[in-house]
């Protein structure tokens, strides 16, 4: 066993021990503790927990790599996944906190005074959360298999047991405090290699500044200019220019923002703080904690891309460094010498290109590429696991509370006792873990493709219903239900047709409606939701007076907890 592997075992086991310890210390004893951690979490803790909840394996492992290969086009993720918090903080979080219930379907069901609305919301929450959680379990499996040399299946099972333990035992309370710890682990793991590499390449310890700085080789050339030059030389688009159309960039960014603000596992975190002002503040803190990673990732992307091109392009295959061989063994890098010159041609032209690189490698192999000490490599594994586990746990809670609270307690069996509901919540959490684990081990081919679209689904379903519910007092139930159904079905249809190819042959890009990709289509589906909702609203019933009073009431921050009794 090499040094790096010993460190990996030590750091992963230590962090797992920490999570389990916290889970035992913070078990939930009531449904309120299980669903919303008793509603007494401090804004700082909630901010960290939200950040960990939000930043998944995709943010930690894949995002810098995606940007690395997409250049400017990768900005959609950076702006989309952070700008959504502005919407969340200004338009949703304070009012939902004032409303003061347990789940998003709770809000939809009460605000639109309708069991049907609640059931539609549960259905949307389940679709969004399941597509998302399967990807997380898969992420856990991949980290295990790459660093600890166990099968992906074994990795997924280990991950399932850990999550099962603290989600089922601790509910939201356990999840919140483990997420605080997980945030610390993942941000440390992300920043350490980034700072090291920034110093190596630009002499500046702050990656956000190093990215725009000059190279430390004394040439005085700016790093970004150099990378633009390297990219165009090899036939790629200049790094700081994109190749996507402005319309599509606009649409994707908006879908990701509205989707972020509409994701049930993020929204529900704001039910856990004490007062409305705490909800606002913790949204700000959450974005601050997220921004630390999100402003570093594009810097890592630039460093890694430059490093990669300089190391491999036009160089002899036999003289590649050790990390190249290590990752070649895992299949994440591969080289076919098409013109038999013994050198690596890495170019944009697919016919002449000899190198394929998996995007995840840009974060995973970064410490090795930069010759960092073995403990840093172990740190990356622990960080990736923290990111995947924290997000999985948050999603599982949404799934279990949707089933136990919204379906069983509110629709099927309203006379369920408090302890009965707590048990129902625990059993549904366990059931959800098992299903998620199953999808992690046997991923249906479409899971990976669909995870990115979970945002489109959230934007197309929840976002308009919640916004209208708060800002338009006269919005009625028929309109909201029609809007949600229209939005989510249109989005599902577009995905099925243009992403999954389930309806006839997969059409070429030229046939995209308005030139908008499936990733960006959530924006259109969201607009359709708004329009259908408002149109149907015009021709159907008036909103009951007492519901209008509820809306009046949630707009005023004082008197939390009395919003419903009024």
């Amino acid at each position, binding site marked *: 066993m090499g040094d790096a592997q010993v460190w990996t075992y030590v750091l992963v086991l230590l962090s797992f021990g920490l999570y389990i310890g916290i889970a035992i210390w913070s078990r939930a004893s009531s449904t309120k503790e299980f669903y919303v951690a008793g509603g007494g979490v401090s804004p700082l803790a909630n901010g960290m927990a939200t950040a960990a909840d939000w930043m998944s394996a995709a943010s930690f492992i894949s995002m810098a790599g995606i940007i690395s290969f997409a250049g400017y086009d990768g900005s959609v993720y950076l702006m989309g996944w952070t700008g959504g918090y502005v919407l969340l903080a*200004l338009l949703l979080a304070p009012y939902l906190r004032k409303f003061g219930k347990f789940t998003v379907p709770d809000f939809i069901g009460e605000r639109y005074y309708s069991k049907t609305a609640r059931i539609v919301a549960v259905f949307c929450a389940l679709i969004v959360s399941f597509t998302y959680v399967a990807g997380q379990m898969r992420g856990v499996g991949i980290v295990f298999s790459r660093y600890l040399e166990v099968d992906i299946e074994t990795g997924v099972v280990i991950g399932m047991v850990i999550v099962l333990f603290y989600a089922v035992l601790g509910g939201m309370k356990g999840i919140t405090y483990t997420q605080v710890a997980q945030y610390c682990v993942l941000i440390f793991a992300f920043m350490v290699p980034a700072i090291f590499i920034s110093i190596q390449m630009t002499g500046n310890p702050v990656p956000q500044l190093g990215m725009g700085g000059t190279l430390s080789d004394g040439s005085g050339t700016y790093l970004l200019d150099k990378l633009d030059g390297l990219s165009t030389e090899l036939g790629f688009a200049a790094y700081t220019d994109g190749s996507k159309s402005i319309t599509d960039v606009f649409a994707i960014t908006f879908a990701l923002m509205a989707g972020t603000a509409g994701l049930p596992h993020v929204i529900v975190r704001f039910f856990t703080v004490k*007062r409305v002002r705490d909800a606002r503040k913790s949204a700000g803190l959450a974005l601050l904690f997220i921004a630390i990673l999100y402003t570093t990732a594009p810097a890592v992307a630039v460093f890694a891309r430059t490093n990669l091109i300089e190391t491999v392009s036009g160089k002899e295959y036999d003289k590649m460094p050790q990390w190249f061989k290590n990752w070649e063994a895992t299949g994440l890098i591969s080289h076919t010498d098409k013109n038999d010159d013994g050198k690596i041609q890495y170019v944009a032209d697919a016919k002449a290109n000899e190198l394929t690189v998996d995007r995840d490698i840009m974060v995973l192999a970064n410490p090795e590429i930069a010759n960092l000490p073995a403990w840093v490599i172990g740190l990356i594994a622990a960080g990736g696991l923290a990111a995947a586990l924290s997000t999985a746990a948050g999603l599982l809670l949404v799934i279990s509370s949707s089933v136990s609270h919204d379906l069983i307690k509110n629709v099927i069996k309203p006379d369920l006792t408090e302890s009965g509901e707590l048990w129902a919540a625990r059993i549904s959490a366990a059931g959800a873990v098992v299903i998620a684990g199953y999808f992690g081990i046997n991923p249906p081919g479409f899971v990976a493709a669909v995870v990115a679209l979970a945002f489109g689904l959230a934007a197309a379903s929840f976002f308009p219903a919640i916004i209208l519910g708060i800002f338009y007092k006269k919005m009625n139930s028929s309109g909201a239900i029609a809007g949600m159904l229209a939005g989510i079905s249109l989005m599902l249809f577009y995905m099925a047709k243009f992403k999954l190819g389930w309806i006839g042959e997969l059409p070429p890009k030229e046939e995209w409606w308005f030139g908008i990709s499936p990733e960006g289509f959530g924006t259109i589906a969201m607009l359709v939701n708004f329009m259908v909702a408002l149109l149907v609203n015009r021709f159907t019933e008036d909103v009951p007076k007492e519901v209008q009073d509820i809306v009046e009431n949630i*707009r005023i921050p004082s008197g939390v907890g009395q919003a419903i009794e009024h």
Partner: protein
Amino acid sequence: MDLEKQKKSSAYWKENLKYLSILLGIWFAVSYGAGILFKDALDSIKIGGFKLGFWFAQQGAIYVFVILIFVYVRLMNKLDEKYGYNED
């Protein structure tokens, strides 16, 4: 709700909406404006190694987002106090 209370709450709501439209205007300008629609034009300006449009898209917009939320928190806390909706 009696009339006096009603009046107070709708005045509060109006001020809140005014803040929202200003802050969301800035939110839109830095991301969709500077980072996307006017990216190419701004790219002719360079700050250090960064082209300005590119910087907004990958760095600047995010910093402004964080600041916007904290400004909102401050404004609303003051507004709550003004209308007596604060609770401690």
